[in-house]
């Protein structure tokens, strides 16, 4: 299913809904904050490097949160870091999306019990769109997470979208 509703016999003219067009452009150029936290960040790096090539989904790491649409929380969120992550998230312009990568940022992961300095789940500070399980998730899993996010964006409605 593409965004095309109808194609005229004459070239260069397509008809589509404005909403679909917006969603389509949004989901095909998700720029992420270039931001790694822990072991999962290495897998995120591997995903953006030559073998798995994140670029083909339009995901390009940007150094600044103010130019990004997506933040991938890749790794353990500690108490010292949590408020910084919240601030990063707040600096991103709307619409913004969050992928929580790895057990640590989902729920504390291996550190859930004795981790006196680990935040048990990043969703205690920022809202999360897609959770990717694994410790660490394989690059394929992260790609799948991204596809899920794209699916979510594709079905978004411009009118009703409320951001947190």
């Amino acid at each position, binding site marked *: 299913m593409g965004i095309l509703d109808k194609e005229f016999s004459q070239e260069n003219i397509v008809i589509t809904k404005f909403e679909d067009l917006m969603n389509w452009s949004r989901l095909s150029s998700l720029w992420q*904050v*270039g*931001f*790694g*936290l*822990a*072991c999962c*960040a*290495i*897998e995120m*790096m*591997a995903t953006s*490097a*030559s*073998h798995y090539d994140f670029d083909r989904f339009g995901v390009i*790491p940007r*150094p600044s*949160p103010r130019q990004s649409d997506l933040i991938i929380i890749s*790794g*353990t969120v*500690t108490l*010292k*870091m949590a408020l*910084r992550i919240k601030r*990063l998230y707040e600096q991103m312009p709307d619409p913004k999306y969050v992928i929580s990568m790895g057990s640590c940022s989902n729920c504390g992961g*291996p*550190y859930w*019990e*004795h*981790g*006196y*300095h*680990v935040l048990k789940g990043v969703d205690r500070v920022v809202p999360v769109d897609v959770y990717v399980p694994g*410790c*660490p998730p*394989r690059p394929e899993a992260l790609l799948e997470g991204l596809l899920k996010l794209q699916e979510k964006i594709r079905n978004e409605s411009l009118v009703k979208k409320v951001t947190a």
Partner: protein
Amino acid sequence: MIEMETTSTNLRTQEMVLNMGPQHPSTHGVLRLEIELDGELIVDVRPHVGYLHRCFEKHCEAMTYPQIVPYVDRMDYLAAMYSEIGYAVAVERLLGIEVPERVEYIRIIMGELQRIASHLVAVGTYGLDIGAFTPFLYCFRDREKILTLFEMTCGARLLYNYIWPGGVSHDLPPDFIRMTKEFLTEFKPTIVELNNLLSYNKIFIERTANVGILPLETAINYGVTGPNLRASGLKWDLRRDDPYSIYDRFDFEIPVGKGWHGTVGDCWDRYYLRMIEMEQSVRILEQAIEQIPEGDVTSAIPKRIKPVEGQIYTRVENPRGELGYFIVSKGGLQPHRVKVRAPSFVNLEILGELCKGHLVADVVAILGSIDIVLGEVDR
């Protein structure tokens, strides 16, 4: 009123504090630097660490000895195999057990492959910091091949839980030796390629030679180890100087910094030393896969690890330097205290000294050349 002429002598100046991190693409993780500046010149750099403090030592006190192995992986996630080797050696020495020949060989093969993989990341991201994007892709392409070998062996790409106290979790898969040989033949030309692409690049040399010089005296006093110490000119490698496992059987060289393009102990030396070390690791690997004997790999794994009261400090040469484990046992199933001497933690301390008097742009070059892993700094 006479208007004062503003010259450099009566102009009021003030030092400026610049904050870098914890979210910064060149800090290799979550490190915060507080940089004090006098114009463009650095007066002082104060690293703030702890943003990834994951309570490793507390977990050790609550887990039994075999349960600790996965947590050890997560400390230095770029060289997880080597952290496991260090931990296994420490527990074995505490218990006084010997491991079979084949296990020793497997450990060395894994350790040296891991060293190459880790140095590849170090070199690749260093290029990225300086502004060269392509070497990063080359390095990750080759690292991916090593990860495939690891994945064949134990099913994980990054954090393995493979080397246990007393042995390894299971034997090598049948194809492993052949594929490792293939990898080595493919990999040797890559080093030359990388050298041509990055090491001898004029811009790269200009950015790194004569920058961040670390004199030997300071290095020893600050406890700097690993490639950073060797780049300053001391032939000190624990594989030779405090032997563990069976490193004494192999023929390899310990490179030291010579000031190829500048002064001994500058950033270029530290960078280039990693390139030479990869060559030496290939040499060790070639010998090891020729000599590896047949045998059992799980026979020496103890059923229950319960050391008597005692304590031990053992150290191994991980890709970043001296990785030491200090284990205190009070005779229980869990250790009383485990403290890790993480090489990155100690090496990072030198940053302030190295940066003094340099320009702001050099901070990234110096930090990258020290090659830290934040998981290990903060544990």
